[in-house]
């Protein structure tokens, strides 16, 4: 088996065509995970009765569930119960008309929510408790204290963790291939079944993932640099 550059080129081409799918999976997952994760982090930070305990338990349990396992479980549930769900919500589409990406999103988001929310919660906890009291003492409400005093101080601690999570999210998206969604990975090895050039295919996939991670990371490092502007003050 020799390394064929033309096979690599063919695989690269296949991988590149599916970049939009991987990007879509990554960004949709990122946005929803960070929003839901933020909400859960705030609920747990303020120890909201019932909800705080509920999400605490959810995260403890869900953190131990590998993404791959979650994907196949959701996919099976989806296949088995789609008709009942459709009936319940009065959806008239047949199962074949439903984009399997939806199952991918649900599995990716629910897994990613855990890590984003823990990152944000950790950052919120790093702000000294007297900062809340100082806010309340000048007459700020709970919400004003949170958004004007606590959150700005935790942003420099949130950003590096979120970048780390984002890279994890990108790399996690390729697992959706197990439920038949073709993305960068699938696109890269598609020609290989004909040419048996799997090494070239995997390397092509690696190169494209590396490129996507690199670009997104660079963008977010800029954000980090901007947020560091006021970390300097937080000695």
């Amino acid at each position, binding site marked *: 088996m020799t390394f064929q550059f033309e096979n690599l080129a063919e695989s690269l081409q296949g991988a590149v065509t599916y970049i939009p799918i991987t990007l879509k999976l990554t960004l949709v997952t990122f946005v929803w995970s960070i929003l839901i994760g933020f909400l859960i982090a705030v609920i747990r930070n303020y120890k909201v009765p019932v909800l705080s305990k509920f999400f605490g338990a959810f995260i403890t349990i869900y953190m131990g569930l590998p993404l791959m396992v979650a994907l196949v479980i959701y996919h099976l549930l989806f296949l088995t119960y789609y008709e009942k769900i459709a009936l319940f919500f009065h959806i008239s589409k047949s199962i074949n008309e439903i984009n399997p990406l939806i199952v991918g999103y649900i599995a990716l988001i629910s897994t990613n929510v855990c890590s984003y929310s823990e990152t944000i919660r950790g950052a919120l906890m790093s702000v*000294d408790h*007297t*900062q809340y*009291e*100082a*806010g*309340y*003492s*000048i*007459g*700020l*409400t709970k919400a*004003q204290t949170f958004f*004007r*005093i606590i959150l*700005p*101080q935790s942003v420099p601690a949130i950003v590096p963790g979120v970048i780390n999570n984002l890279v994890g999210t990108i790399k996690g998206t390729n697992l959706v291939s197990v439920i038949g969604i073709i993305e960068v990975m699938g696109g890269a090895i598609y020609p290989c079944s004909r040419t048996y050039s799997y090494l070239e295919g995997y390397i092509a996939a690696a190169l494209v993932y590396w490129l996507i991670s690199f670009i997104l990371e660079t963008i977010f490092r800029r954000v980090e640099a901007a947020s560091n502007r*006021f970390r300097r*003050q*937080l*000695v």
Partner: protein
Amino acid sequence: MIEITGLKKSFGDNKVLKNINLKIEAGSVVSILGPSGSGKTTLLRCINFLERADEGNFQFGDQKINLKHVSKKEILSVRRKSGFVFQNYALFPHMTVLQNVMEGLVTVRKIPKAEACKKAEDTIKWVGLADRKDYYPSQLSGGQQQRVGIARAVALNPEVILFDEPTSALDPELVGETLDVIKKVAQTGITMIIVTHEMAFAERISDKVVFMDGGVVVEEGSPRDIFVNPKEERTQKFLSRFIQKDMYYI
């Protein structure tokens, strides 16, 4: 003006405050003295609801509050009429001195920015930090930070300012400048409640001195009553070192 009756507070089984009764006249300066763990800081924090009292009644001006069933609205209204100066300054580290002082004026009082800025600058100048208004708290000395803390409280024109050991985190050299500012605040006629270990300062500045121990008010009276003729044995013992030194000067 402020009247506390039957205030009780415990942390678990530890009864920190046992039936506190205290009356504070408008415009007076009250110092609370006592050994560590006597509950003086907890009392001060209960007044500003940074700590919730278990029982008791609280009257602030004509507002009467049952401390057991206090509403969020009542808490906010008391906090908006009072200022709090923290032992560790608790300035907002992501804001400059000016922004720290402006925050309450703009966000709470809804004063237009330009006007709030002017008011904040005047207050900062008044505590002697006009040249430091664009600095961040981390660039200031402890004494300067505490003066910003005082400015932040004073700028909101509160009816009462609560000082929680305002000088005990400072090194001796910086205590003086902070005490000078506190004295200036007292001269404006704002009601002040000060928890402190600075005996000489408390004696000079106070209209009334309260001595606490073990969660109760042991003795209260004029500075002269407490420092020169303390009646209770516990007060005499606590003040013995200070009183002897003072008598030497007489």
